[in-house]
């Protein structure tokens, strides 16, 4: 049998173990004031519950033991005790109100998205996120960048398996950033635990949320609302930067966007379109139509050797620009720019044995979109 001090040792070692594992068992403290408040509330309420549990169960087990039948204890026979009853009703009320006050204050603060320094539109799409820096002319999609080989188990899975993207959401620290969140298709949920943001994105609705990050770093999250076959393949990566670094990034992005806009007017060579098209195809299209255009019928038709695609350029362009209503194929008119659409259409018309020799110019696509 263990002696009391041995029990104590066991308990303290378990406690220190839980301390060491606290970060993996508990919710994260996070990197915003809001997330810290939430964590603080969580721990306060947890300890209130622990104290209540110890007192209630302590009294119960002590009474069971002290007044047990074998020692000749007799049950008391009284009907009521108003003052004790009032007391044990009033104490929980006070505890609940005591917990509600800081919880409400935190909640109120969480909902106050006013007076933000930067507005970002977050749009959920099957199965990627689109970020639009409102008033800055910057918009891009963020796609899973974990390789197909890793997903299939053909190569070793890295540390950020299914939690890596091609283009993270870039945010400045120490500034209030407001998110306007919606969806193009089904309900998604934008969830980054370290930022204490978990907000549904609903088609036809705009939800608000906000963050003010205190520490630069990379914060990862996932879609938290089952949204279809690739729900697990649309992670979120937030790159929080120092403010000066963010400004530089913003300028670079703006310049790149301008260059891209200029690219619409010029004539592109087939090699350029093919190279660009392959990038776009691999990041956007291949999750459904597969890496070699072989598709996954019947939901996702093959593009390689597709007779209609090869013979009807106009039909092909229309599918990409306007999507297919009632099917999984989304409209890319607002997601991809004319250069990207022209490139990916040219690519799919000339890759994997689809040797049409067609090139589609960005200007043509821009015209089609404008119609």
């Amino acid at each position, binding site marked *: 049998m263990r002696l009391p001090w041995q029990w104590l040792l066991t308990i303290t070692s378990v406690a220190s173990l839980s301390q060491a594992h606290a970060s993996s068992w508990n919710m994260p403290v996070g990197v915003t004031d809001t997330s810290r408040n939430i964590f603080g509330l969580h721990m306060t309420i947890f300890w209130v519950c622990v104290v209540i549990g110890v007192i209630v169960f302590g009294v119960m087990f002590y009474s069971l033991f002290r007044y047990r039948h074998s020692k000749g204890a007799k049950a008391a026979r009284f*009907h*009521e005790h*108003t003052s004790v009853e*009032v007391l044990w*009703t009033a104490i929980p009320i006070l505890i609940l109100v005591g917990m509600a006050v800081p919880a409400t204050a935190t909640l*109120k603060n969480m909902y106050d998205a006013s007076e933000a320094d930067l507005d970002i539109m977050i749009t959920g799409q099957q199965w990627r996120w689109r970020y639009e820096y409102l008033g800055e002319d910057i918009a891009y999609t963020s796609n899973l960048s974990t390789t197909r080989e890793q997903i299939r188990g053909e190569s070793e899975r890295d540390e950020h398996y299914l939690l890596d993207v091609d283009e993270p959401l870039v945010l400045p620290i120490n500034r209030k950033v407001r998110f306007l969140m919606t969806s193009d298709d089904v309900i998604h949920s934008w969830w980054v635990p370290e930022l204490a943001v978990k907000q549904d994105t609903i088609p036809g609705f705009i939800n608000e949320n906000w963050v003010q990050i205190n520490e630069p770093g990379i914060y990862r999250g996932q879609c938290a609302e089952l949204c279809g076959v690739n729900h697990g393949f649309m992670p979120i990566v937030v790159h929080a930067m120092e403010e000066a670094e963010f400004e530089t990034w913003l300028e670079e992005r703006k310049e790149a966007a301008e260059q891209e806009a200029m690219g619409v007017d010029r004539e592109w060579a087939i090699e350029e379109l093919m190279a660009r098209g392959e990038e776009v195809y691999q990041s956007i299209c291949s999750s459904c139509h597969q890496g070699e255009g072989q598709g996954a019928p019947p939901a996702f038709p093959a593009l390689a050797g597709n007779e209609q695609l090869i013979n009807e350029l106009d039909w092909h362009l229309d599918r990409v620009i306007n999507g297919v209503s009632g099917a999984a194929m989304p409209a890319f008119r607002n997601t991809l720019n004319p250069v990207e659409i022209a490139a990916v259409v040219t690519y799919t018309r000339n890759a994997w044995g689809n040797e049409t020799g067609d090139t589609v110019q960005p200007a043509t696509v821009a015209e089609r979109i404008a119609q």
Partner: protein
Amino acid sequence: MWSVVKSVLAALLGVQNDRQRQQDFSNGKPVAFIITAVVVTMMFVLLLAGIAIYAAG
């Protein structure tokens, strides 16, 4: 009248002593309790709404 209010408040808290309960059941009229209870509940709702408005304002 006061004893009806007291009994309604006791019911709101969920605690009542047996003596008062026996008295209510032998002397009281149900209508008086129902009306008082409706009024007290409305006052309670208004009180909570007031606190919420004050806290939000």
